[in-house]
Each structure stands twice: as structure tokens, then as C-alpha cells.
């Protein structure tokens, strides 16, 4: 497996091409994330028998928000301003080198799966600190709940990623994708399927979807993410929404390419990139529709039942690693 990354270094495309590919990926996530959110809203509405807002609604909301006046709470320190920016920046950096469109993004040798995990943690920590900054009851409660859910979903994420890394012999993301393209049989192996199940649970928790959190609620007993960002307004709120949408796009895209890597571009050439972009859009849209349908058909779990779900994900991930070790 050492060879896969070695080729990235030796025979890879030019630095400009990989940099352009990375910029393209960030752009795709920044535009695609809000569209995916809009698509999920649309599917939910249709499934419930409503017409629903257009798919571009989130983008329209973002345009409205950036034009509004920035208002911050009396008690707020610099953290309120820093948190949304760090959230967006961490998602953008993760999107730049994750193999979404191409397996040859910029600094492919440093594109490590654990770095993505910890960049996501960085965004979560920033948001949680932002929630505590205004000194309100809701913000603190939301931070507390979000960190609790995060503390239990992160182990599942880390060990789920490790299951893939053990199979591929590397935690380098392009390396993992290359390895699964080279060994299609791995994709149906028990450890992959178990890891997939674990990571689906994690993605639902990290993006705050039903049954873990309900993004459309403002009921104090149930809200998690919305409580945390209650004090963000105007452009700050636009950045928070953008960051969350980017994380959704990033996680769905990553999940899609780790488990169904077909269509991804390996050469950074014009036509292949277009195909890869279309494939990424199709894959993530399909997953978004599935998640939306699950959301419509299930009820949100009580907060204290959520850890059971996430612990289930963690156990699945550990079993995935064990299966891989036994099978080797």
C-alpha cells in the first residue's frame, strides 16, 4: 500500500493542476452543501404532502443574511466573531484535500483521514465555545448537548475511519480511495459494511439530523444545534449556516467516495473532472434523499436515548476493526 502514495508524489499531475482541483473541491462543497440542505428540505416537504421551498432556498437565505446588520450580544467576546469563521475555515481546509472530486488534491501526501476527523472537531469546539459566549441559558444548554453528542460520536468516527485505514494499510485518504479502486472486492467485505454502518450513524449525528437532532425545531426541550447558535445573527449566522452546510457536503461526499469510489478522477484532466463532479453530485444527492426519507419516517430520539444509538455505532466500528484483523 506504500506504493499508492508514492505514485502520488512521483508521477502526479502538476502543482497548479492539483491546487486548481482543490479550489474546485472547496467551491463544490460551498455550493453543493447548501443545495443538498435545500434538496433534503424539498424531499421532506414532498413526502409530507407539501410543496416546500425551492431547492435553492438555503442559498437565498444566505444572501439575505449577509446583507443584514451584524448584531452581537452585550456579553459576547471575540469568540462570537471567531467561532463562525473558524467553522467555515476548518470545513474549507478539510474539503480542499479530501478526495471528493479527485484523488490528487493539493498536498495529497498530507491528506490524512485523522486530520479530517480533528478538523471537524475543531469546528464543533468553535461552535460550542460560541454558544457559551453570550452567557444565555439556551446557548450553554445547546453547547452542553452538542459536546455530549460529539463526545460519543467522535469515537465511532475515529474507529470507523481506523477500520478503513487498517484494511488499506494507510490513513492517507487518497491512498484509501486508490486502494479500494484497485481492490473492488474490499467494498463488499464485512469490515467495510460494518464501518459503513458506523459512519452513517456518525454522519447523522455530526450533521444534526433526525433522529439525533431536528434542524427545524426551536423547542427548548429538544433543540441542540439551533440552541447553540441562537445568538448568532446576520453575517455571523450566514457563516454558521454555510459552515454547517459545508460539513454536510463534505461528510456525504467523503462517505460516498470511501464506500462507492467510482467516478472519482485520478488524473486531474478536464473531462474526467467534469465526470467526477457529476458523479459526486449524483452520489451525494442520492444519499441526501435517503437521509431525508429516513427523517420523515422516524421520530427524533429522546436526548438520553441518543448515546445508545451512538454507542451502537462505536461498537459496530470496533467490530469492523476486529473483523478486519481476524480476516487478515
Amino acid at each position, binding site marked *: 500500500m*506504500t506504493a499508492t502514495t508514492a505514485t502520488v508524489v512521483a508521477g502526479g499531475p502538476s502543482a497548479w493542476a492539483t491546487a486548481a482541483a482543490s479550489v474546485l473541491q*472547496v467551491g463544490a462543497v460551498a455550493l453543493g452543501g447548501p443545495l443538498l440542505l435545500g434538496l433534503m428540505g424539498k424531499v421532506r416537504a414532498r413526502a409530507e404532502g407539501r410543496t416546500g421551498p425551492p431547492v435553492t432556498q438555503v442559498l437565498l437565505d444566505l*444572501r439575505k443574511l*449577509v*446583507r443584514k*446588520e*451584524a*448584531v*452581537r*450580544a*452585550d*456579553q459576547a*467576546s471575540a469568540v462570537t*466573531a471567531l467561532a463562525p*469563521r*473558524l467553522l*467555515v*475555515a476548518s470545513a*474549507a*481546509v478539510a474539503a*480542499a484535500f479530501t478526495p471528493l472530486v479527485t484523488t490528487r488534491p493539493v498536498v495529497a501526501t*498530507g491528506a*490524512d483521514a*485523522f*486530520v479530517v476527523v*480533528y*478538523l471537524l*472537531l475543531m469546528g*464543533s*469546539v468553535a461552535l460550542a*465555545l460560541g*454558544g*457559551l459566549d*453570550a*452567557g*444565555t*441559558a439556551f*446557548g*450553554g444548554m445547546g*453547547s*452542553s448537548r452538542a*459536546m*455530549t453528542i460529539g*463526545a*460519543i460520536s*467522535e*469515537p*465511532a468516527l*475515529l*474507529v470507523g475511519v481506523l477500520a478503513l485505514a487498517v484494511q488499506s*494499510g494507510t*490513513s492517507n485518504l487518497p*491512498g484509501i480511495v486508490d486502494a479500494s479502486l484497485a481492490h473492488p472486492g474490499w467494498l463488499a467485505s464485512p469490515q467495510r459494511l460494518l464501518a459503513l454502518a458506523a459512519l452513517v450513524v456518525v454522519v447523522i449525528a455530526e450533521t444534526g439530523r433526525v433522529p439525533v437532532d431536528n434542524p427545524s425545531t426551536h423547542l427548548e426541550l429538544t433543540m441542540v444545534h439551533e440552541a447553540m447558535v441562537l445568538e448568532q445573527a*446576520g*453575517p455571523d449566522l*450566514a*457563516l454558521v449556516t454555510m459552515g454547517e452546510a459545508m460539513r454536510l457536503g463534505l461528510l456525504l461526499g467523503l462517505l460516498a467516495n470511501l464506500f462507492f469510489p467510482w467516478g472519482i478522477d485520478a488524473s486531474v484532466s478536464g473531462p474526467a473532472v467534469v465526470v467526477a463532479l457529476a458523479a459526486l453530485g449524483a452520489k451525494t444527492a442520492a444519499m441526501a434523499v435517503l437521509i431525508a426519507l429516513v427523517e420523515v419516517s422516524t421520530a427524533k430520539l429522546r436526548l*438520553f436515548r441518543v448515546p445508545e444509538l451512538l454507542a451502537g455505532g462505536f461498537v459496530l466500528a*470496533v467490530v469492523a476493526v476486529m473483523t478486519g*484483523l481476524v480476516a487478515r
Partner: protein
Amino acid sequence: MSATAYLTGLGAAGIAAVLGALLPTRWRLLGAMVPGALACLAALVGSGQVLLSGRSFSLHVAQVLPFTGIDLSLDPLGALFVATTAIVGLAASCYSVGYGAHRAPGRTATATVPAFLATLLLVPAAASVATFMVAWELMALTSLLALLTEHRQRPETRDAAQWYAGMTHAGAAAVLLGLVLLAAHAGGQSFAAIAAHRGRLSAPVASAVFVLTALGFASKAGAVPLHVWLPRAHPEAPSPVSALMSGAMVNLGVYGILRTGQDLLGGGQLWWWLLVAALGVASAFFGALHAAASTDVKRLLAYSTVDNVGLVLVGVGAAGALAAGGERVPAGLVLLAALFHLVNHALFKGCLFLGAGALQQATGTRDLDRLGGLARRMPVTAALFAVAALSISALPGLNGFASEWLLLEGLLHGFASRSSLTDAALLAGVAVFAVTGGLTATAFVKAVGVGFLGRARSEAARSALEVRPSMLAGGGLLAGGCVVLGVVPGVAVPVLDRAVAATLAGGAPGAVRAGLGLDLASLDGAIAPALLVEGLLAAAIVSWGVLRLFPRGAGLRRPRRSEAWGCGQEPQSARTEITATSFAEPLQRVFADVLRPDHDLEVTHADESRYFPEAISFHQRIDDAVERVAYGPVIGVVARWGRLARRGPNGSVHRYLGLGFAALVLILVFLA
């Protein structure tokens, strides 16, 4: 040359202790702390030369200790610990100048800090059983005295000191027994002689030596279940001493395990290291969980030390197990990662304890439930504390991430091993690693968010003032280290590699390529934190620019300030704000089986109707379950024996004479 610098450092620290004890009140603080800081610099130079050149020095002084003399030797492993201690010591000395200045400094405070520092610098250089045990005991005594410094202000300090004295001496007894056994079977008491004899020791003797010393050292390192003294002693000590204890003293427990297990015994058997890894797994999980539930900021930090020592022990254990199984490269990588994490932990935990001391001095309390809003009152302290807190939460771009990534990579590549037992240990290590990551982030979001952000929860927090510049400089030094080692972690690699090469029997150094980022040489994996930081900055600048693109956009105007949303109830008070206790409540409920909190809820009803409560009082305690289950019964038995024995001596001189006579007769009977 390196020996001269190192010995100058030791001497200066000794002089600092004497000056601290003898100088008049006015000059005491500066007279002790300036030589203390210089001592650290000299020791840093000496150990740095050993680390950079790879040439160790040794010397024998026959005149000091009767019968055996003193043997000192500094190899790269010891030098790494001396250098770490020196950096934390430099920051602590600098900090002490301001920390002690608000009231007349007592002799105990000014004399014990440099004395403790001197013993911390001495232990890693001890090169014979006798020297080591003397240095080890001196360290225990000076730290005990330093811990007792503020016993007049807080009665709990006495209790903490009793626990510490008991545990540290039980540990020292185990180490002494182990090392004496080793010296007796190896035919010499100098480490060089013992190391020359390694491999010829019979397996049961070697195992007995390892288990005895490992348990003793693990109690100093604060590994569960021998950690009970740590969450009592570290919070009660004055903050510079807490920083030295958490940043330097617990490291020496790890040093002891490495020195005996790898250097003196030559690696030994697989199960030794699985035992160490098991201690690490238990410590990491238990420590992280208690840190997430604690509301006393220094207790939180102390439990987080248990957590981080656990992670280091997981690495040390995994490295030993892999080396014992012949996996040279992953073993070298894991040990390098563990040592790197140990250094990083010294930096951020030192900084955090210094910050907690600043909080305590400014507000008079360590209880997070009574703090809040301090980021505006004490901006520099808040910033330094936040940098260290984000480092310990392993956010990319800071040093905690670099070493945790290396540790994860090491465990991942260790899975190629042929032993299923090692695989199981590695899997347990990764699992506990994953679980502690999220818990640590929660604990430190709580510490920063509740302590420094939001509204002030007490009058003391509302009127807090920023601490003196010397205190900030001490914390700033350590926080700066966190940032440097986080952005360019590769600069530490050559130094760490020397220590790995000097330590690991059967492990290969050179697992990580030297450079700015971290790049595994023969294994697959690399990160470039500097590029990550550049990317983050670039993304932040771009998002700022995009906001400004909108002509009526608020990116152009200063943000308006307004009252926060309080469901229509204004003005809001800090009483509606979340506290540290309530922040931790969901997690505490999830892990109630391990934490076992005690709740006490009292509702007083109004006279008119029992549906209207007049007053509600809620108390919660989270005691250490290990302490209650494992230590409670033992202490109960000892106390009962103590009470029984007290009936004998009742103050009557005749009875004492009689007892003395009886004892003499008994001895004579035994001897005859």
C-alpha cells in the same frame, strides 16, 4: 561541557533553595526565583547538548554519599526529561515571582520550589540504585513540603498531603525493593553494571523486578488505580508547584518504567508491556471521564493529567509489546509518539495550571460554577489558557494534535504485528484513545467556556483583575511552545529520535523523517500542520473578503451590540446561565455507572400548599469510585487497628517502660 552546564544548573537550583530559606522577606522571592530560572536555563543547555550531539556524560563523586558515592550520567533519554523539566521549571520560576508577590512570601514557598526543581532535575541523571533512590526520596520530600505550603489557608491541604505521603512512600518502597532485588542479582548497583548483565537474569526475577518497579513508578505517574493521591494533591499545591507536579514529576514515573523495563532489563517479556498498556487504558478512560465531570478547575486539570499519562502509558506499553514481538519500526514510532506526547503534555498542562493559579489569585476560587466572563477582565490569561486548552483537545495546528496523530499512526501500523494479544492491546488503545478525545474536548470547552466566557457568576469574578506580567510571561512561554511544536512538529523529531534510540531495546529509531511536518519514513502517512494553518488563515481571509463583496453587507460596519435573547425577560442575570455542573450533567448521566454521582435534593414546601416549593437546595458530589471501592476498606481496617493500638499507650510512663521492657524481651527471645 554538557556536564558542566548541567551541574551548574543543579548547583544554582540548590543555591536558590538556600537563598529562599535565608534571605529577608523583601529579597526572598527574587533571590530564590532568579537563580531558579537561571538553573533551568543551564540545565536546558546541558541536556540540550546531550540531546543534539547524542553523546552522554557520566561522572562519579565518591565523597558525597557514604559507602557508594554518587553516580550521575545523562543519556538522551534522561536528557529529554531534564529538558522538559527545565522548560516547565523556567516558566514556573518566572511565574512564582508574581504569584508570591501579593503577600509576604513565606520561607516554605520560596525554598521548596527551587529545591523541588533541583530534585526533579537530579532524578533522570541518577545512574546507580543508591543515587536514584536518594534523589527519588528527596523529590518525594521536597514535593510534599511544597504541597503543604498553603496549609493555613485551606485545611484540605493536610488531607491531600497525607494521601500523597502514603502513596508516594508505598510506591518508593516498591521501587526500592525491585531495584535492590535487581542489584543483588545483577552483581552491581550502578546502572551500567546492571545493564551489562541484562539478559542473564532469570525470568522470574526479572519479572518480579519489573512488576515491583512498574507499580511503584505507576503510582508516581498517577496511573489508575494508583492515582488517588493525584486529584487531591495537584489541586491543593500552590499553582507553580502544581505545574511542576503535573508537567514534570508525573513524567518521571514514565521515565522510571522506561529506564528499568527497557534499559536495565532490556525489554523483557510481552506481558509486562501489556500490563503497562492496561494501566494506561484504565487511566486514560477514568481520567478523561472525571475531568469531563469536574467543576473545580484544578481538579479537572489533575484528572486530565491522569488521562494524558494514561495515553503515554498506552504508547509505552504498545512500544514495549511491539518491540518484544520483533516489530522494530512500529515500536520505534509508538515510543517516539509517546515521548512527544509527554513533552507536549508538560507544555500545555504546565500552562493550564499556571492559568488556573492566575484565576485563583484573581478571584479567590477554583470553582467554575462561581467564575465566568473573565475573558474581558483578564484577556491575556484567557488567551493563554485557551491556547493550552485547545492544544490538549488536539486541534490541528497545535502540539497536542501532532503527538496524538503520531500515536494513532503508530497504533495503526502496529496492527501489522503477528501477535493477536498485541493486536488486542492496540485495539483497546485505539478505542480508549477515541473515547478520551471527545471527553477531553468536552472538559476543556467547559473549562474555557464556563470559566472565561459569558456572564460573571459571582462578585469576585465580576471584579477580577489581570495578574502581573511575570505570571503571564511564565504561561506565555509554555503556550508559545505549544504553538511552535504544533505548527512545525518536525523540529522535535531529531531530539526525540535520539531518546528513542537510547531507550528501546529491539526498536528502530528513524521512524519519522526530520522536517517541518511529520512524515513517516518507511511507513505510509504524513501530515503538514504548517500548511493546515496557512489554509485556515487563507480560508478565513477569503470568507472575510466574500462578506465585504455585498455592498450593503455588514462586513463593512461595526457590529451593533444588543441584549441577548432571554425569552422576553430582560435584563438577564447570570442565574439563568449554564454552570459547569449543568454543562457536564448529560455526560455524567450517560456515564453514571462509572462516575456514581451522589445527589442530595431538598425541597422545602410553602406553608399554604405543598405544590409550591419555598426553597430547593441541590448538592452533588462525585467521589472517586476507585478510592471508595479499593481504598476505603483498607483504610477502614488500618484505622481500626490504629484505634485498638491506641488503647495501649495512655500516657502513663510506667506503661511505656513496661512496653519497652516487653519489646526487649521479645527481641531477645527471637534472637535466641
